[in-house]
Every structure is written in C-alpha cells, then in structure tokens.
C-alpha cells in the first residue's frame, strides 16, 4: 500500500459559528469519527489558515455523538485564534483529535462540583451534561461582558453559581468563596476544575484539606499535541515523590490535582 493511502484528511465542515461575547466564539464541527472517540476533558488541535506553523489546542465543550458533532468555545488571544474566529458555517477547519487524557468519571449520580474560570469554563460543560442535577457548577469571570455558557449549564440540570471579579454579574469575588459554602452544605465526591493556575492551586488546596478528590485541566504552550515533541511540560509528583516533567498534551490535560507541582 503506498504511503498516500494512509494519509487521512483532517478537514471538517463547520456546522455553526457563533460569537458568544466579544472575542469569544462557539464553533460546532461536523466530525462523526472524532465525536465518537472523544471523552470529557480531551481537546482538539486546530490549524489556523495562512502563515502559521503550529496548531492551537482547544478543549472540547460539547460532544454530540448522535449528531456527529463537537463544539468548541475559544477566546481570541492572538493571530492564530483571530484567524480561526474568521471561519463561518460551511467553511472547513483543519482539526486533529480527539487528543489527551480526559477526566476520570465516577457514576453520573455522584455529587460533584465543577469549577470553571474564564475561558477555562467550556471544558466543564461536557461534565455538566454527564452529571446533570448531581453537579453544582461554579463559574468565575472578569465581568458581565465575559460571562458565557450559564444557560447551557442550567439546561443540563445543574445548580449554577456565577462569580465576577467586579460584581457586574452574580457574586462579587472569587469562586473559592461559594466553593467553601457548597462543600459545607454538601461535601462532593469529586471536584473538577479548569482555569487560571492561581484559581486551580487554591481549589486544589481546599480539596486536599477536605479530603475531596480533585481533577484539574491544565494548559501550556503546545507543539505536536500527541506526546512526541515534549514541549508542553508540566511538573508532577511520581509515586515515590520524585518530580517528573509530564506533558499536558498526552499525560493531561487533566491531572489529579494532588500530583501537580503548583509552584513548578
């Protein structure tokens, strides 16, 4: 068989493209093979068109196996994501995936708390849809102009708690305030979180103190996305306590919070 017979197309049609908030886009992609294989917490690697050398890793926000679609929600951060934001329904997107190690899920009726910070909120939605009413979703944003996905979490049947830094929507302050209250009201069996490192390390510390298992989704500048080039390093503790440079793309993006070296 010639080499060309093994080359798979990575071009997928965009089903819908919506700007949720200025600079925050929701893209639904028709990709039955990837949707079938994807699990909560994984990501896809999107290639912007034009003069770019690297793909952009974007976490999966919804998996619809019946429709054969994936949804991703991403913020415009630089030229690459700005180019991806120019794509529209009917265009194709160059996508590699699903990639990475996702969340390890207990039964769907397990009480859980899901916490998303800013553009770390989207990967909480597949979890919310899995856990439904047994999940409490706490979301934190800069201000009301950045708030996304609250209707989606509510539609999944979850209790939602919204926080903003300036109080322009929901509670004023950090997600860790309602998190402490929720833990007191009903101790969850699992906490899952994605967002800025200071938020994640604070959540990890609270979870550890309360003896609650905690899984976090991390981010790092990435290359191949499959675990070969070793650029997206993240320090974790091995069983013997030794610090090991793991890789966000393959060993993660989801890690057991107790394994993460937060100051490393």
């Amino acid at each position, binding site marked *: 068989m010639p080499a060309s017979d093994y080359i798979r197309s990575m071009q997928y049609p965009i089903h819908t493209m919506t700007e949720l908030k200025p600079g925050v886009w929701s893209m639904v992609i028709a990709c039955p093979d990837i949707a079938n294989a994807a699990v909560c917490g994984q990501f896809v690697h999107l290639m912007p068109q034009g003069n770019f050398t690297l793909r952009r890793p974007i976490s999966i926000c919804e998996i619809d196996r019946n429709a054969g679609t994936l949804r991703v929600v991403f913020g415009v951060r630089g030229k690459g994501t700005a180019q991806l934001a120019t794509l529209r329904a009917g265009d194709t997107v160059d996508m590699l995936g699903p990639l990475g190690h996702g969340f390890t899920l207990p039964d769907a009726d397990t009480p859980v708390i899901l916490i998303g910070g800013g553009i770390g909120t989207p990967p909480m939605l597949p979890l919310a849809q899995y856990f439904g009413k047994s999940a409490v979703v706490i979301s934190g944003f800069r201000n009301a102009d950045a708030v996304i996905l609250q209707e989606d979490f509510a539609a999944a049947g979850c209790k939602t708690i919204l926080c903003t830094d300036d109080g322009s929507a929901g509670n004023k302050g950090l997600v860790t305030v309602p998190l402490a209250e929720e833990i007191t009201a009903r101790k969850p069996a699992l906490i899952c979180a994605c967002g800025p490192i200071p938020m994640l390390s604070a959540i990890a510390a609270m979870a550890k103190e309360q003896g609650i298992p905690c899984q976090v989704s991390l981010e790092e500048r990435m290359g191949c996305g499959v675990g070969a080039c070793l650029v*997206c390093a993240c320090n974790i503790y091995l069983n013997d306590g030794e610090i090991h440079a793991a890789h966000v793309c393959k060993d993660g993006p989801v890690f057991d919070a107790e394994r993460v070296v937060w100051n490393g």
Partner: protein
Amino acid sequence: MADLSVNICGVPFKNPIIPASGVFGYGREYANYYPLSLLGGISAKGTTPKKQNGNPAPRIAETPAGILNSVGLQNPGMDAFLHEELPWLLQQNTVILANFAGPSPETCAESAAKLDQTDVQMLELNISCPNVKNGGLAFGAQADTAANMVKAVRKATTKPLIVKLSPNVTDVTEIARAVEAEGADAVSLINTLLGMRIDRRTRRPILRNNTGGLSGPAVFPIAVRMVWQVANAVKIPVIGMGGVQTGEDAAELMMAGASAVQVGTAILSDPYAPLKIIDGLNQFLDDNHIAAARDLVGTVQPW
C-alpha cells in the same frame, strides 16, 4: 514510481525521508497514525546517559515561518531507552538512528559502547543542542572540542557514526572536516539556530529558558546553503535537514548534496508530513523523468 531507495554508510533505506530527532519521540505516538515501516528511517529522541527532565515551560514559541523550542533534551536516559524503547523501535521495519548526547566525551563513549551492543543500525551523535548547558553545543561549536568528542566515541563503536552539526558556528565546514578526520561516517545538519522572542507586554522572553532553537521553513535556505558547503568540503555522506515541508524541498536539499533528508517541524502540525514528503518526492522525480532519488544528490549546478 521512481526508485526512492538510498544507501548511507552501507545501510539501505527504502526512501530518504527520516523524522528528525526530537519531534518524533521514540515513534510510539505516530504508530497510531500509520505504520512506521513507511518511513525511510527514524532518528529517535536524543538520549543522554541519565534521565533528564529538560527545561521549564514554556518551551515553544511560534515565529514567522517557524518556531523556537527549548525542550532541553528531556529523555528517560540511555538504559531506559535501551530496555524500554529500542527493542520496540527495532521491530518497526525501518532504519533506526539512535541519537545521543552527553556531558563529556567519556559519557558519550559509554553510551556509544552500549548502543554498539544492540541491533540499532546507526548512531547519531548530537553535539549541537543549543538548549542544554552541559554538552550539546558546548562540543559542537569548535573544531577541537568536536574532534575530541568524536575521537572518544569512534573508539567505542564500529557502527556507522553520524555526527549532527550546529549552524551556530562561523564556519560549519571546519567542524565537518574535523569530525570526518576523527572517523565520523556521516554528518547530519542543520540543528536549530539559536533565537529569542520577547512578550512585548510583559517584557519577558516567551521561552522560560530565554533562548531557544529556531526551526521550520524560515531556516530552509540556511539548511540548503550549509548542506551544500559541507557536501563540498567532506567525502562522507551528508544527511540534510532544516525546514523541509514538501517533497520538492527534500529534492532541493538532495541537489545541494544531502543523501537523505530529515523532517522536523513540519510534523508538529501534520503527523502525516513525512508521508506527504515521500509522496511529493516521488511525484517530483516522476514529473521530471528522474529514475531514482539518489540521482539527485549533489546535482546542483552552481554559477
């Protein structure tokens, strides 16, 4: 279908396209995408005597037509490579180049002696990594230190020894001649060019290591030039690399004097890049009625 086979130092390759060291790990990740037997060879991740964790992240930055990386030779160490990775690699029906580096000529010679006891087809000594403080470019930047390194390693193995050269030197032909004189069987070039980018808002270098190695299509003309210079300066085969993205790029590097071509950065965005380059090279040869890839080697007609 043109004849793509090449022979380097007596080792037959089914085609001249080889994923470069550092982008392909030890091959396992890409075996999920296609049989590795389609590849001419694989240059395995650079392996040091002991496990190395590499540099802190961020280790990568996109640049115009390229990337900077500062991985810093993260690897599990030579013994782990020999026991956990190499036996599997040797079952993939492709030529394996064991890329290795180390902090001293003595330790590199020890690694070479260990590799000599295996069935690996070729050794690729890395004296050109720009991202580690000890070893790497410390040996490859000057002819005398490069020669001392190769002298020590040469005594430790009878297998074909490729020496991977750095472009971060005043005269690459001087280094190439020095390693040839000490018994290198081939040279491979170019490793990455030392570069730097700064985040203009924070005024911090994007790479946590401050500097890193530049690769990708931006460096392709430099690779062509250096391969051409070295091919004219030494009698041993040259394996070319640096920004190759297409089969036509590979053909051009072979015209400059490369007997085979390694592919690096192109694989980061496209796992299938090596297969596309093999196909593209075949297409170029067919379109131009050239019977064999090896007929391209060194055929540039300089003015």
